C-alpha cells in the first residue's frame, strides 16, 4: 500500500499542496482526478522523488520511501518525453538498464512490450519518425519495461486512440490484479469511472474526497430517483422532503432521502401503474463538480 501522508509543497509564496493525504491500495486501480493546476502532477512528482515535499512523507507498506525503492516504480510523467533521435527499442532498453536490468534482458523486455503495444515494426526507428499516438505507446513501454512494483501514471490515456486505450486499460488491470498499487490521473472522467476501484479528488491543492468509488457515490450528493408512470406525476412536487429536478407529464427526477422516496413510490403505485422507479447514482462528473465546488471557494484567490 502506497500512502501519501500530510504532504505540503510550496513554490515560492504559492502553496500548491496543502496537507495532501491518501492511499493507493494494492490490487486496486486508483484514479486521481482534479482540475488543471489542482496539484496532481506535483503530487506524482513527490511520490517519485523527483520533487521534495516541504512536509509530510510517502510510505510504501509503512516504510518511508528510499531512493532504492523507487527503482521499482514505473512512472509516466504528464510532460511526455523520450529521446527524439534515439531508436525506440534501444531507448526503452536503456531505461530498463537504468532500472537495474541486464543489457540482454532489457532489450528482450523492450521488444516484447513494443510487440504487445503494436510497435514491433517501428522498434528500430528513431522515435521522432513515429506518429504522436505511437510515441505515446512507446512512452507507456518506457514506464513498464522494468516490470514496476508501483505504477504512477500521469494522464496515461491522453493522445491514445481507442484501441491503444484498450491495450493500456488491459495492462493496468493486469498490474492491479498482480497486487501492484496503480495510481493514474485522467481528465477523461467517464474512463476513470469505468476503470477505477478507488478515487482521489484533489482541488486547490487539497484532497477534496478520497475512497472507494461506490462509497463516494453514495456519500457525496444526495441520491436521485427517477419515476415514470402512465399518469401525471405533478403531485410529487407537493410531497414534503422532495425536490423535483426535472418533470415532464409522467416523468419526474427528484432528490429525496430513502424513506421519503419509498413513500413516493407507494403513493405512485396507488395512483397509476408505475413503469419504472430507479435510484440514480451521481456520475463521477457530478461528484467531481460537487466536491470541487465545495472545495474551491475556500481557496478562491
Amino acid at each position, binding site marked *: 500500500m502506497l500512502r501519501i501522508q500530510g504532504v505540503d509543497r510550496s513554490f515560492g509564496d504559492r502553496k500548491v499542496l496543502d496537507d495532501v493525504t491518501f492511499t493507493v491500495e494494492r490490487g486496486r486501480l486508483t484514479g486521481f482526478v482534479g482540475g488543471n493546476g489542482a496539484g496532481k502532477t506535483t503530487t506524482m512528482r513527490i511520490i*517519485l522523488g523527483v520533487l521534495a515535499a516541504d512536509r509530510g512523507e510517502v510510505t510504501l507498506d509503512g516504510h518511508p520511501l528510499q531512493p*532504492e525503492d*523507487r527503482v521499482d516504480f514505473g512512472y509516466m*510523467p504528464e*510532460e511526455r518525453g523520450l*529521446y527524439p533521435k534515439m531508436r525506440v527499442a534501444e531507448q526503452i532498453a536503456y*531505461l530498463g538498464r537504468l532500472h537495474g536490468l541486464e543489457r540482454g534482458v532489457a532489450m528482450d*523486455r523492450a521488444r516484447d512490450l513494443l510487440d504487445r503495444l503494436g510497435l514491433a515494426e517501428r522498434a528500430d526507428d528513431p522515435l521522432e519518425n513515429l506518429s504522436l499516438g505511437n510515441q505515446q505507446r512507446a512512452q507507456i513501454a518506457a514506464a513498464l519495461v522494468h516490470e514496476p*512494483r508501483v505504477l504512477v501514471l500521469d494522464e496515461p490515456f491522453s493522445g491514445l486512440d481507442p484501441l491503444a486505450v484498450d491495450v493500456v486499460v488491459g495492462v493496468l488491470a493486469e498490474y492491479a490484479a498482480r497486487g501492484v498499487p496503480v495510481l493514474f490521473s485522467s481528465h477523461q472522467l467517464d474512463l476513470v469511472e469505468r476503470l477505477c476501484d478507488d478515487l482521489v479528488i484533489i482541488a486547490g491543492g487539497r484532497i477534496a474526497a478520497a475512497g472507494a468509488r461506490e462509497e463516494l457515490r453514495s456519500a457525496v450528493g444526495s441520491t436521485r430517483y427517477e419515476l415514470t408512470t402512465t399518469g401525471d406525476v405533478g403531485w410529487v412536487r407537493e410531497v414534503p422532503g422532495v425536490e423535483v429536478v426535472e418533470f415532464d407529464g409522467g416523468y419526474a427526477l427528484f432528490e429525496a432521502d430513502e424513506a421519503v422516496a419509498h413513500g413516493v413510490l407507494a403513493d405512485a403505485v396507488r395512483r397509476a401503474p408505475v413503469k419504472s422507479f430507479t435510484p440514480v447514482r451521481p456520475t463521477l462528473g457530478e461528484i467531481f463538480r460537487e466536491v470541487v465546488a465545495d472545495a474551491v471557494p475556500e481557496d478562491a484567490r
Partner: protein
Amino acid sequence: MSATTTARPPRPSTPRLALMVAEREIVTQVRTKSFIISTAILLAGALVAIVAGALIGGRDDATRVAVVGPVSEVVAQADGLEAVPAANEDAARAMVREGDVTAAVVPDGGVLGFRLVALDEAPGEVVATLSVAPEVELLEPSGTDAGLRYLVAFGFGLVFLMSAAGFGATIAQSTVQEKQSRIVEILLATVPSRALLAGKILGNSALAFGQTAALAAMAVLGLVLTGQDEVLAPLGAPLVWFVGFFLVGFVLLAAMYAASASLVSRLEDVNTVLTPAMMLTMIPYFGVIFFNDNATVLTVLSYVPFSAPVAMPMRMFLGEATWWEPLVALVLLLATCAAVIAAGARIYERSLLRTGPRVRLREALAADA
C-alpha cells in the same frame, strides 16, 4: 510484462548509472553523421597539412642564378644558390628576362669583380648571400625559434579550443535536449542528477579525448612518414603534460557547459546562457597566442586554471618552467575543477525540472528549488 515474476534487480550504484549515461552519450554521438564527418575531415586535414608542409618545405629551393665565365666560382661557394652556366653576358640577360633564373652574375671591373643583373627589383636573397655580413651577438638569445613558438602555441591552443568548444556545445545540447524533450523527468525518477551530470561529462570527455588522441596519432604518423620526426623530440614531455592538463581542464569546462545549459529549457536559448563558458574557453587560446613571447603574461596564464592547460605545456616546451610549476598549476586546476563541479552539480540538480523562462543563476544556487 510476462507473467513470470523475476527476481528484483538491485538498484545500480551511482557510478554504474553514470557509466550507462556515459555509454549512451558516446554511442549516440558517434552514430551521428556530423560527428563522423567532422572527425574524418579533422584527421584527413591534419594528415594533408603535414604532408603538404613536407612537400613545400622539403622542395629544393635553391635559387637559380645564371653565371658567366669565371664568376661561377663565387656562386658555387654560396649556400642556397644554384649556378646555371650561360654562354655569355647576353645569354645570361636573356635567361633573366625569360624568368629562367632569378638573377645573373656577370663579370665586372668593380671591387667585387662581379655584378648582379636582375629584372625589375634587386634580388634580396641573392644580394644577401653574396654579401659579407658582420657577426651578430645576441645578449638574450631566444631558446626557440619564434616561428616554432608560435606554431606550438597555436597547435596546443587550437586543439584545446576545438575540443572544448565542440564537445562543450555537445554537452550543452544534450542537456537541453533532455530538458526540452522532458525525458529528464523519467531519468530523474531513477537516476540521481549527479550520476546524470557525471555520465554526461565522462562520455563527452572520453569522446573529446579520443578524438584528440586520434588527431595526435595522425600527426605523429604524418611526421614520421614524411621524415620530419625530429620535431617530435622536444615536444615529448610537454605533450604528456598537455594530455594531463587537457583531461582536467576539459572536465572543468564540461561541468560549466552542462550547468549553464541546464538553466534554459529550449535549444534556442542555449547560446546566450553559454556565453560565459565560451569566453572562458577562448581565453587560453587567444591569451597564449597573443602573448606567446611575453614571459610574464605566459607565466600568469600558466597558473590561471582556465588557460593553464595550454599555457603550462607551452612554457615547458620553451624550457621556461621549472619541474614543480606544472604540479602546482595542476593542483590549482584540480581544486578549481572540484569546486566548479560541486557548484555545477548544484545548479544542474536545481534547474533540471524548471521549465519555461531561463532560471537565474542566483536562484539555482541559493533557493531550494
